[in-house]
């Protein structure tokens, strides 16, 4: 029965489950076409983070001598970039996925969520491939592998949920406001610098005297500032940058990811805080998507 859309908040993930074959086919299509007519094919999944690792190793590791603790900087940075690359690619692809599927959306019904979900799903495969490279690097640099590496799937799941939330939100916004097509690359770049994937947060403390509202307003500025300061050591001796870092749900997860794989303190409380933030992001993203999806075919 079809009636006018109601304004209830709902996730309706069950419907997506009943369309899981379609979700599978979309994911499979996204993976298949990603590296069609490329020379290196799926090797790009490794090349991308590896090249970034090389760049950051030269710029930050060698020239700026960013502290990476006891770990060799390349391994340190690769372990941070791995979940980050996954997250960044996933939100970029998901964010553009609905607009890119305009043709299907105006011609046939299926749960629209399948599109951004599939875009994120396809990136999981890249992550898995690139993860193999991480193991090789660890072997090369002689970094011991601990039991906590078994937490990887769990963390991957949390990052996936985060990417789904952000990706769905961006994809839905992109339908109504094409501005987001241009905003997403900036967002990803700023977010990269606001995430300790290529550096580490030193001496953690919480900010006392900045009020929250102000923080939110200056978030992007501060992050850009952060980017400027990046070469000078990232020691975060000024409180404001650390506030941004802690507000960013990716911070706890990426730190935890690195610690779980390369060894280090497992900051459970922080990762749980981040996870709950991720859940909120996910729910906000999906609810917004659900609320506007019925208009997609009309305004896309």
């Amino acid at each position: 029965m079809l009636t006018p859309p109601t304004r209830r908040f709902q996730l309706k993930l069950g419907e997506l489950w009943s369309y899981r074959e379609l979700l599978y086919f979309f994911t499979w299509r996204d993976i298949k076409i990603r590296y069609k007519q490329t020379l290196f094919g799926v090797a790009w999944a490794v090349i991308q983070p590896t090249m970034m690792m090389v760049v950051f190793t030269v710029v930050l590791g060698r020239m700026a001598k960013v502290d990476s603790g006891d770990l060799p900087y390349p391994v340190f940075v690769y372990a941070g970039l791995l979940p980050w690359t996954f997250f960044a690619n996933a939100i970029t692809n998901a964010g553009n996925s609905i607009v890119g599927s305009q043709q299907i959306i105006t011609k046939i019904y299926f749960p629209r969520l399948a599109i951004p979900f599939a875009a994120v799903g396809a990136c999981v495969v890249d992550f898995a491939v690139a993860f193999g490279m991480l193991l090789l690097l660890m072997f090369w640099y002689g970094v011991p592998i601990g039991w906590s590496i078994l937490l990887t799937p769990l963390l991957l799941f949390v990052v996936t949920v985060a990417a789904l939330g952000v990706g769905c939100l961006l994809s839905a916004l992109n339908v109504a406001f094409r501005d987001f097509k241009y905003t997403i690359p900036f967002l990803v770049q700023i977010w990269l610098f606001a995430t300790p994937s290529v550096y580490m947060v030193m001496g953690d403390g919480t900010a006392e005297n900045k009020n929250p509202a102000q923080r939110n307003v200056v978030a992007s500025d501060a992050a850009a500032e952060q980017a400027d300061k990046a070469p000078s050591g990232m020691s975060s001796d000024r409180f404001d940058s650390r506030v941004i870092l802690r507000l960013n749900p990716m911070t706890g997860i990426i730190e935890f990811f690195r610690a779980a794989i390369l060894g280090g303190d497992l900051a459970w409380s922080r990762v749980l805080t981040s996870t709950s933030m991720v859940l909120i992001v996910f729910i906000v993203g999906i609810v917004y998507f659900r609320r506007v999806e019925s208009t997609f075919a009309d305004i896309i």
Partner: protein
Amino acid sequence: MTTAIRVESLSKRFLINRSRPREEYTTLAQTLGEWLTLPFRQLRDGAALGGRTEEFVALDDVTFDVSAGEVVGIIGRNGAGKSTLLKILSEITTPTAGRVELYGRVGSLLEVGTGFHPELTGHENVYLNGSILGMSRSEIERQFDAIVDFAGVYEFLETPVKRYSSGMKVRLAFAVAAHLNPEILLIDEVLAVGDAEFQRKCLGKMSEVATSGRTVVFVSHDMTAVRNLCTRVLRFERGRLVHDDDPSIVINEYLKGIRTGSAFRDLTGPEVERTGSGEARIERIEVCTSLGETSTAVAMGEGLRIRAVIRSRAEVAAASVGIGIFDAMGTRVTGVNSEEAGGPAIRLRAGRQTIVECLLPEMNLMPGTYRINVNLHRATARDALDFVRHAIEFDVIESDVFGTGRAPNRNAVVFLHSRWEVRDASFDPMPGESRAAASAVNV
């Protein structure tokens, strides 16, 4: 009989912006700008709230039932709400008011090849397209051979679809769709594709579907197909259901009614797709029958007059006008040009309006919707002063053009008059001699 589809006071309204063409995307800055200036604009407009947006009613309080096994045709002019109805029935868009009940699995075919990906092979696309259309993987596996067989693309199964000819692509796409087995099938104009032989195959498949006891809702401009396939026809006009009866009754009335109505278009708006130097502009375009009645519809074989009103900013000593005619699929059918046809040179004076009229004495186009592009250019030069894409549409409607009560075969774009002779061969000289003799006579 059991009900398959129940539609109750269904309405769909869109908000359209009067000052901005609808196709333009909204950007955040625009929206923010509007929010910021809204109070001032309201102040200026004397608080005429909602004055800026206009409601467009695509469907207006539509109610009907379809019983299981019925094949219902939906006809109406462009913008009558046919496609909107189909989009609501297939859940692509939601109604503004009213409700729809569907009893049974719904399959919709609003376009063939929805979701085909050019980089994937034919084999892969069958699976992808099948699952988008709502088939399960096991169903596709079971039907795979039949699909490939129907499409006749066996040798190219492992070739990316981007290397397919457009005919092959369409055949494969239709083959997948034809093997969809829903209880309720919604179809929009899909027959207007492929070559003649394949269209026949599709029509065959369609009537097979239609007689198999499935419920079919079929939107089309193709009156012959509707007449042949449907058991009942609904006619829509401006979003309302205006006629619901036997196919021949509804169709005949529709063809009578379609011949009146305004058939001009103002081309000064910003939504008009145009290129050219802009020294002169086509401001208005009008079509009418050769008898002078303004109408968007012309019967097969009848004449069509196309009138363009041009305003020039510069002096142009000699201009000419070209008119390209395109079918609904966007294929160029033919074109005419005043210069090539030996028509009078068109002199444009600065600041003055000029009317150029073109008469096509006999439309030997098959029924359907056609669009025209108009190109105003300097005589002997090709670069346009003004070129308007999709300036206006006109319909060619069925008529007994040969006076025999038989319409020409649908699978064509044009029809030709023909004369036939039959002789007894034994009274005729040898074929070779006959040709020589004939040419001798002609000379």
